């Protein structure tokens, strides 16, 4: 091995400083801390996922016992429904033409919820903006930036009621409210936060099974249906998740629209304005995933779509009883790109 020795002598090892050793150890320690919080969140999320399904089953039972909930559109002929849902096929054709080359799938969403104050006199609205960058590479890390938007009265009427209550900036719930609030809330928005983590969300939870590559997701409605399972409610929720959030091809997004158009549980709701005030066409369905955990009454989930661009705009879940916007996700922007702007905020290479 003497030529090996010559190579070793050509390329000597540099000195190793204690500062470098310590700095590296600190970075690892941070990763350990993240790992622990991630695990905490993962088990919480799995729990919520299971409860959400149970809650949905309860909601479906309620729907049957009450015949039809008030916000439910009346029965229509299948043919009329087919026509009313035709915009989904237009959206499918539009989205199929969107470019999907790139190494990162980036979305900017506004997520929020509305809920009653502890005295039940007015409605509050909490929101946050979430920017997400998911790598096409299944081994890569997903980057998130959360920008909390704070809590404010939901409408001008709620604002008037809030003022006459003394304009409080914090609220205390002695016990869990029907909309799932408990403990103390403050109006002030917390600081934005950026972090990266493993992309367990899509690749593990989509269709309840691991997907090592998102490009293995089929791009025909029939194959997509076979993947998302026989249960219609689960199939709808999983298809919506793929359509809105996952790093899939434009072909898969088109197939998702076509699959939704073919499912009887997805009903046309006509021209609407989404939570951000954008005009679009809507469908509604009973979701297992988007009903807040433990919400006692039936709820209805609405998808707002821009058929011209093919872009999904919002997922909005309302209480069937009073129309309260229980939870929503509105997509401001989504695109494939070759870079991830969040990554530039830290040192790389």
């Amino acid at each position, binding site marked *: *091995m*003497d*030529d*090996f*020795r*010559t*190579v*070793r*002598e*050509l*390329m*000597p*090892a*540099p*000195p*190793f*400083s204690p500062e*470098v*050793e310590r*700095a*590296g*150890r600190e*970075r*690892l*320690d941070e*990763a*350990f801390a993240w*790992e*622990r919080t991630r695990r905490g969140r993962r088990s919480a999320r799995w729990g919520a996922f299971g409860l959400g399904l149970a809650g949905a089953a309860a909601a479906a039972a309620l729907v049957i016992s009450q015949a039809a909930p008030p916000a439910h559109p009346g029965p229509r002929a299948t043919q009329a429904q087919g026509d009313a849902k035709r915009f989904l096929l237009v959206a499918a054709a539009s989205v199929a033409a969107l470019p999907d080359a790139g190494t990162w799938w980036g979305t900017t969403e506004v997520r929020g919820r509305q809920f009653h104050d502890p005295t039940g006199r007015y409605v509050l609205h909490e929101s946050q903006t979430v920017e997400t960058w998911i790598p096409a590479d299944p*081994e890569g*890390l997903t980057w998130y930036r959360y920008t909390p938007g704070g809590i404010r009265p939901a409408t001008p009427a709620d604002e008037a009621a809030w003022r006459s209550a003394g304009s409080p900036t914090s609220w205390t719930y002695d016990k869990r409210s029907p909309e799932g609030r408990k403990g103390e809330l403050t109006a002030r928005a917390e600081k934005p936060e950026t972090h990266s983590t*493993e992309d367990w969300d899509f690749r593990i939870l989509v269709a309840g099974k691991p997907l090592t590559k998102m490009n293995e997701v089929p791009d025909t409605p029939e194959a997509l249906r076979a993947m998302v399972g026989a249960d219609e409610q689960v199939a709808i929720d999983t298809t919506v998740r793929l359509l809105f959030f996952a790093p899939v091809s434009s072909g898969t997004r088109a197939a998702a629209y076509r699959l939704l158009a073919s499912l009887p549980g997805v009903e046309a709701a006509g021209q609407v304005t989404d939570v951000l005030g954008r005009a679009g066409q809507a469908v509604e369905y009973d979701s297992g995933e988007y009903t807040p955990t433990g919400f006692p009454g039936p709820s209805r989930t609405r998808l707002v779509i821009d058929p011209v661009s093919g872009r999904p705009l919002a997922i909005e879940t309302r209480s069937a009883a009073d129309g309260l916007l229980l939870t929503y996700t509105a997509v401001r922007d989504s695109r494939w790109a070759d870079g991830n702007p969040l990554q530039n905020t830290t*040192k790389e*290479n």
Partner: protein
Amino acid sequence: MTANSTVRGIADPAGTLSDEALLELSRRRPERFGEIYDRYVREIHGYLGRRLDRQAADDLTAEVFLAAFRKRETFDPRRGTVRPWLYGFASNVIALHRRTEQRRLAALARSAGAHDGREHGHEDRVVTRVDAASVQGRLAAELGALSDGDRDVLLLSALGELSHEEVARALDIPYGTVGSRLSRVRKKLRAALGGVDPMRGGCDG
């Protein structure tokens, strides 16, 4: 608590945990991975520093361990030990810095061959030993001309002192490929050195 039947020899005779047992424990208790870092950080820093330069080694050593930590679930004790597995991550990091490596080899070739008295980085000066200079210059030039795959196999063997089996594990290539690449590369090096026995390059070691 997480002792896996695939991990043999949980503790060595001195009573310390084996690398493989520590890695197994770190699946459930991430902080145990810190001990892997403590054991190998100097060695991995040395390997990166030899192949790239001190600055790159200072910057990238933590990346190697972070990548390994995130992928610790993929470690399979049946396929080898922790050390070559770590060298695999070091190889991935180096693959992202091929230009730094080429710059370094070019600098080594220049400084060893030219004797022009210019000031190079301190790393470069270290190798400017008069007798060995021309041999080392040619060696550096030859290393720079190798394919990335050949260079990886050679330097994991020569600098990392990994066995054929461990190199195969680190680079995730077949065992036989390691042997054939290595004999091809060593033949090339000898030819390029013009019959000069690299062992007799004049270094005192």
